[in-house]
């Protein structure tokens, strides 16, 4: 295990009433593969954390491990994930069942496969309230109607008896959100919930989740490979690369002042709709193989600014560059990168 690294100024989380989920030095191994490598973040009560990274960067694994949904074995999880001071990583299956659905709700990426094809919407929507809250069939049904209304499904009574294949993708994802919210969780984990949807539906879902979050005072972790989507919902963004948080900052700050070369690459790779000319910028290369992680900085072989001699031999530690802004690079703390993305800041 790696030695403890300097953390953000969150101090002991249990005494900090504003932090709902505090993840410390979380690591996940599956066989020889190092999927998640010492991730630390915290989610404030009522706040939204966006987790951004490309495919294979360990976004989903990080959150699944932090919420106790990962299958272990085969996965081996170390570190801590404190939900109100209770460590989810060390919970037994029975304790986890009390957390899942009740305190933490989940929305998965693909709505077409996360609903059971042989059960009606009502059966799936009333399941958790009945065993978590002990509701009767009738009360659970009333609650299901309210939930469908809340997530913006027209004509809830007739939708209750629908089967998933009779619903469109956007509808299914709304039903999934209703399922996730059924027991009033304190934390909603959304794992790329809009990736499978078209842009219009995506915007509607995003808007709806924001409204629900505000009306319920819920915390949200929103995972995406799409900076645009995250910018629409998050207060704070963590950029994941090779199973490490390479940069973490409040939303505004990350967009106006990205310090890590990878974050800058991501910003440059966004299609600019306003002046849609020229070629799309890309970051050459591909993410590191989790079975053979390099000894030095994980981004080294793709990095455009690797100048420091330590880059190849040492993993850069988390370095604070602002009150709430940390970055994991030897080359981002100074101003040399500003001209790299066009110089406007």
């Amino acid at each position: 295990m790696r030695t403890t690294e300097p953390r953000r100024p969150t101090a002991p989380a249990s005494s900090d009433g504003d932090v709902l989920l505090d993840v410390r030095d979380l690591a996940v191994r599956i066989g020889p593969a190092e999927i998640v490598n010492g991730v630390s973040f915290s989610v404030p009560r009522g706040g939204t954390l966006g987790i951004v990274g490309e495919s294979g960067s360990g976004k989903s694994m990080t959150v699944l491990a932090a919420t106790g949904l990962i299958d272990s074995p085969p996965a081996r999880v170390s570190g801590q994930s404190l939900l109100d001071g209770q460590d989810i990583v060390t919970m037994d299956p029975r304790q986890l069942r009390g957390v899942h659905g009740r305190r933490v709700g989940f929305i998965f990426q693909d709505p077409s496969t996360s609903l059971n094809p042989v059960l009606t919407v009502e059966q799936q929507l009333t399941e958790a309230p009945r065993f978590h809250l002990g509701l009767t069939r009738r009360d659970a049904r009333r609650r299901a109607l309210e939930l469908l209304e809340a997530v913006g499904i027209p004509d809830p009574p007739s939708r209750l008896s629908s089967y998933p294949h009779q619903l469109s993708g956007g509808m299914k994802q709304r039903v999934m959100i209703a399922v996730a919210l059924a027991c009033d969780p304190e934390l909603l984990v959304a794992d790329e919930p809009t990736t499978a949807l078209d842009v219009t539906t995506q915007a509607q879902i995003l808007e709806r989740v924001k409204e629900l979050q505000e009306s319920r005072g819920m915390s949200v972790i929103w995972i995406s490979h799409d900076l645009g989507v995250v910018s629409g919902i998050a207060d704070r963004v963590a950029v994941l690369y090779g199973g490490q948080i390479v940069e973490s900052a409040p939303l505004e700050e990350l967009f106006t002042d990205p310090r890590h070369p990878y974050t800058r690459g991501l910003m440059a790779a966004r299609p600019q709709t306003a002046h849609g000319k020229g070629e799309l910028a890309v970051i050459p290369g591909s993410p590191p193989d989790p079975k053979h992680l390099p000894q030095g900085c994980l981004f080294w072989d793709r990095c455009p600014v690797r100048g420091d001699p330590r880059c190849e031999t040492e993993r850069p530690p988390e370095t604070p560059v602002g009150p709430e802004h940390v970055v994991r690079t030897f080359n981002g703390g100074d101003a040399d990168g500003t001209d790299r993305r066009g110089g406007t800041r």
Partner: protein
Amino acid sequence: MSSPETPSSDRLAPGAGDGRTGPVPGPAEPAETPEEVSRTGTLRMLVSNKVTAAGLVILVLVVLLAVLGRWIAPYGANDIDVVNALQPPSGAHLFGTDELGRDVFSRVVLSARISLTVGLVAVGIALVVGVALGLVAGFFGGWPDTVIMRSADVLFAFPILLLAMAIVAVLGPGLTTAMIAIGVVYTPIFARITRASTLAVREELYVKASQAVGASDGLILRRHVLPNIMGPITVQTSLSLAFAILSEAALSFLGLGVQPPEPSWGRMLYDAQAFIYDAWWMSVFPGLAIFLTVLAFNLVGDGMRDVLDPRQRTADEIRRSA
């Protein structure tokens, strides 16, 4: 999750997500009327196939015979009338009489109940035990899986009838032991089918989603896994019923199943052996009864295979509405 792709190179630019307020019904959500998909829908689709419908009709007749046989049969199963022994079919004896003058028609009718009972009970045993074992093996994996499936392999290694005979030899011949023996012999088939289907369903996202709302393993198995694997199990049940009835006939034919004076199709064939050249009716009619019953279960089983697959079914509905 392994293909290298350039992140955030698609979809929205920042800020576009919060550009609109409130839900706007998008073109992606056509207001479709919820179509009623119910148990009667399954039956309707089952009957729409003529071959399956024929199978169903025969099945219903056999079941009626089994239930109402006592009132349909003109004679008792053991009304001996030696004077009229070995009579060919006639008005008084539709299917003729056997060597003791018993009415073959009455015996065929009265055997239906016993054959069906043996089939149902035996397959019931195999179904309950096999599905339970298969679910455990498939869902939990690990050593329970190894123990259960290797034991099933051992049972599979024996020819079905030989194994059933061995069990009967240990427990002693009779109706009850025949049912137990046939049940044991068919258990591994159900265990294997259930395990295979469970393995597939276990990886589905909705099982993960159910874990994510805190459902217990028992609840997940009952509500999410079992209903999704009912298709193949139902089909196997129907086909196994056919084979179980055949096995019962075979055991009874060998004198290991139903014991006289109880009538049974297999037993009747056994009795008819000696008279096959003199009284063809003694073997033809019970044989026909076995043939038709087994055929009917097979036809219905095949029909169900087509109807019960949820994906297949959705495709059918789409085709129909198009």
